[in-house]
């Protein structure tokens, strides 16, 4: 893989791309092969992700062809994807505790 690119989609199944340089809002993103055509809705910092398609709230999000978490709100194509709209499904002791409290009638 010789990228020579401003961004990368690591697997065809992925919902997100990674910026390999700082990218400005409004930049036009086209990849005919992947069927991607969009404009960035926000500045994307180096190494951060943007969505390459519409993602519904609650939908699983893929990178490396694998699940990396779940959308916490609707995400538009070209939007910055990070901690504000994507959450982990693993190691969630907070959710476990909430479930335990509900079961024990505390919450």
């Amino acid at each position, binding site marked *: *893989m010789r990228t020579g690119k401003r961004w990368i989609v690591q697997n065809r199944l992925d919902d997100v791309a990674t*910026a390999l340089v700082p990218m400005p809002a409004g930049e036009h993103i086209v990849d005919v092969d992947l069927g991607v055509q969009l404009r960035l809705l926000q500045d994307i910092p180096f190494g951060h992700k943007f969505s390459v398609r519409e993602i519904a709230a609650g939908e699983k999000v893929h990178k*490396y062809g694998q699940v990396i978490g779940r959308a916490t709100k609707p995400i538009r194509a070209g939007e910055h994807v*990070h901690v504000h709209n994507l959450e*982990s499904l*693993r190691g969630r002791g907070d959710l476990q505790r909430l479930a335990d409290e509900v079961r024990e009638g505390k919450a």
Partner: protein
Amino acid sequence: MQVLGYRRRDGRVGVRNHVLVLPVSYEVNAIAEHITRAVPEAVTFRNQHGLNQSGADLVQTRRVYEGFATHPNVYAVLLLAWGNEPHDLKGLVEQARRAGKQAELIALETVGGVRGAVREGVRIVRRWTEERAAVERVEVPLSSIILGTECGGSDACSGISGNPALGVVSDLLVEQGGTSILAETTELIGAEHLLADRAATPEVGQRILHIVRRVEENAMKMGVDIRGAQPSPGNMDGGITTIEEKSLGCIYKGGTTPIREVVEYAERPTEKGLVIMDTPGHDIEQITGMVAGGAQIVIFTTGRGTPTGSPIAPCIKVATNSFTFRNMRDNIDFNAGDIIDGEATVEETGRRLFALMLDVLNGKQTKAERLGHREFGIYRVGQSL
């Protein structure tokens, strides 16, 4: 393929010839520092542990001491003790001697306290630093090398450049009959199914799933989202959002070969090839575990530029992006950011990193070695008592 190393009496192969001052508890850290200040050719570290431990922690701490005292990168070891540590220290000296090392024990209470210990320690250590020159490097096969792989201060580039390049090194070493350790169990969460599919036997696959389940359940007992610790704030600044994403980038370090074995923290692999060690993601505890388990060299990829090393094993620092390579040029040995910049492929950069590893095995000093980065930390199972 051959490199030049030190063949020890127990048959193991070292790539450094260290005189190690090993403080077996925190009581004697200051003495170890006094001695190595007087004899700067020797190495030591600060120990936070050694007392008030029981059960699995006591066993694990002992395993780390044995791993360091008998390590093939060590020519001679001075065990420094207060004298009341819960360990058979004479037994540890015997183990080191059986491994072919010069080894002595100084217990504080037998030499009249601090000044006596420093005087005696300096005398012994100075002699060893002169005598060790008599041991020469000889040709040894690459199959005798155990590489510890690590990523710390990861960013989104870690899974695109640094870790895949390190994966190429792992594959090349395994092809030569050597061993590569993939660790950081916390950073396998979300990627364990891919590793279990690559296990050499169904039992190894089950072990992989077991250690990941164990670390995840333990983390969840705290009742919080592990985000903040995993991924860390630095990881998040670098673009990593979730532990699954971090893990999927992490596992590239191990390359593509089957996983032969899963070993406990600081345990020596019995198989060659790719093995997994159950360690935390905590960088220092991880390096300490891999080195105690016999790794003679560590390759450490970093997106954010962490400076750490090991007292007895060379640690090659690899930047995952060119910004960090430039911003941390005092500390970083190698830039894998050329992959991000589109100037090289993963394969090309991986082969270049493999060539650097051979140089370092042959004696080239890493920046962490030259700068005196000698961090040490033992992973804890339970609490201090």
